[in-house]
């Protein structure tokens, strides 16, 4: 009896600590993350159209239709290609640049800033800059013409190029992020290990492949997972640069398709199903990527 009495104040104090420290954060999370997801989930089970009178429960019909909907499947393909580009290109290029910049001098510090600038820029600014550069009459094609290329590619207007141009722009913007993460990883590689390997006769390539690269595994994990999530939900660049075009669906990502279906065609129940499916795909992909990449991480 006396023991249970003495526990109550401790429990009360803990509850108070939880409420005072964790409460506000939990409330924000519930209101602005969990609740909208649950509301969307609810809408996805209906034929909700704000411009029509009646809304009916349709069960999993929206999800069934989605799996055969040509527009959705095209946007899934577009999103997957973009994600592959955005995960691979900045990771590879970012690692190479980080290795080159991993030196202590004002010059390399300045270069780090230069590479990081695109990350800080708003996606709108980046989109406008690149639209101007890649336009048929833009600086890039003008330069190509000056160099004697009669018919330079339509970077944003040719359906065969537009998606890859978009991937290149996204990669350019995310490059600085990867560089910073890899640089932080490189600074945690113990110098004594590299020196010992050097004394044992290991060359730069061997030192990198046997010591640096394995120790950069956590950085690779972070970069891959964050790039994967960012790329899969990309919307703003598409909206500004190509509007899903040229033509129908050429660069329309799932997020872009959600907006078009929900706010242009007014099929908000169906658009909610798309959004929920996108959430599930991102969760599964990032979970799998995290598990696979964590396996090769080494603790010192």
């Amino acid at each position, binding site marked *: 009896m006396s023991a249970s009495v003495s526990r109550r104040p401790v429990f009360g104090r803990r509850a108070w600590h939880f409420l005072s420290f964790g409460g506000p954060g939990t409330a924000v999370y519930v209101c602005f993350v969990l609740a909208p997801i649950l509301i969307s989930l609810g809408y996805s089970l209906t034929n909700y159209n704000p411009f029509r009178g009646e809304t009916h429960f349709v069960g999993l019909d929206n999800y069934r239709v989605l799996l055969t909907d040509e527009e959705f499947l095209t946007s899934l393909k577009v999103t997957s290609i973009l994600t592959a580009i955005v995960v691979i290109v900045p990771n590879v290029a970012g690692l190479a640049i980080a290795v080159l910049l991993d030196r202590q001098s004002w010059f390399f510090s300045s270069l780090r800033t230069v590479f990081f600038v695109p990350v800080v820029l*708003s996606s709108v600014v980046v989109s406008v800059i690149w639209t101007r550069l890649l336009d048929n009459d833009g600086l890039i094609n003008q330069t190509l013409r000056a160099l004697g290329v009669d018919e330079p590619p339509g970077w944003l207007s040719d359906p065969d190029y537009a998606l890859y141009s978009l991937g290149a722009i996204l990669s350019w913007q995310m490059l600085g992020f990867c560089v*910073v*993460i890899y640089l932080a990883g490189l600074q945690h590689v113990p110098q004594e290990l590299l020196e010992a390997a050097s004394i044992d006769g290991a060359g730069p390539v061997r030192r990198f492949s046997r010591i640096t690269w394995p120790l950069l595994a956590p950085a690779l994990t972070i970069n891959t997972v964050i790039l994967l999530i960012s790329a899969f939900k990309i919307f703003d660049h598409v909206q500004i640069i190509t509007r899903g075009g040229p033509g*129908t669906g050429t660069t329309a990502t799932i997020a872009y398709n959600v907006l078009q279906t929900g706010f242009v065609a007014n099929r908000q129940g169906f658009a909610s199903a798309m959004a929920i499916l996108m959430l599930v795909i991102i969760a599964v992909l990032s979970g799998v990527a995290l598990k696979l990449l964590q396996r090769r991480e080494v603790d010192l």
Partner: protein
Amino acid sequence: MRRRLLTLGMAVLLAAPTLAACEVGEPTTSAGKKEITFLVFETPNLTPQYWDAAIKRVTDKHPDITVKKLVSPDQDRTTYAKQLLSSGQFPDVMIAVSPAGFAEGGNLYAWTTEELKDFQFPTNGAIKGKVYQLPANTQTIPVVYYNKALFAKAGITGEPKTYADLLSAAQKLKANGITPFVTAGVHDSIGPLWAGILATEVYAKNPNWMHDRRAGKVKFCDPEFKSGAAKLAELARQGYLDPKDVSRDYAAGQQAFLDGKGAMYAMGNWLAGEVDKPTTKLHVGQFAWPADDGKAVIPAFTGGGLLVSAKAKNLEAAKTFALGFQLDKGNLDNSAKADGLFPAIKGYSPPSDVGAAYKLGYDLYAQGVAANAVVPAFGFEAGDDGMLPGVTAKWDSSAVDLVTGKKTPDQVCAFLDAEWAKAAT
């Protein structure tokens, strides 16, 4: 180490948008005044100054009303209005937003016959018999504007009267290294050109085509529409318009024509506003998109005016502002000069100091009215005369598919019929 890196990664991602944050302004209101929100959109013709002056003209007459101007982030103000509606911020007054969907959902105020008494075509754009958008002005979509110097350079002496003449002119221009048609492709920028073709191929033969499509009597895969799709694809295949230009947006397309990057530009009559500016040095002529047999066909749309939210907090003030804005002589004159509009208001005649391009376009329209040759402008109709919600956007993107060769006319027609069926469910 992973935890540290994760923390760093999250910090970087959180800091970047913060550093790139936009400025947010707080609206100010005067006590005792009735505030209304007004959604506008900006173009090279309709500048912030244009809107501010137009609003001020009305608020000067109605000092009890204050207006908070909302600007659509791009020209697609209808989609933006839907987003605002969904987030509970539907504007009190909007201009040139398509009423389809909003009206059926009970979100728009239906104007009474008495309130519409000053308009020339008071029933235009009706939805189930009710008018939600003030039928304020007529726009001819398209007019073919042409660069006189480039026509002369290619040895073209007269304006094309038939479609064969048009192709012949295009052929001559191309042979002289001149791009025959300036185009753009983002949003509805290529729509006016296709609307010209479809006016002669579809509406000239059946002015009720869209009503028949709604009733299921005709389809996009029928010969009339398919022929219109084939003509657009053929223009691109012949090299008379450059598929690479579809990455241009509306403003860039207009600038390309004004910069002399092509000889012809099929665009709404609002281009006259730009052509008539003293800064424009280009000598521009205009003609209607020619039919195969040379018969006059003038595609036009009357509507495009202000709409009022049925749930506006100050409904009376919103109505007063909308009608005041639309009927103000100064505003009408400015809309004619800046945006080339033909105000469809009883007793209104354009000011005498409008530019030459405006006068020419107005005469072209007047001749069309006299010859009973006015048909709807395909893709720009509204209300019961227009396509189902969402289909117009597919029609726009299909035009680009035809120009880039991504889809054949058969594929485009089948796609549009499928999208129509989807929108109807």
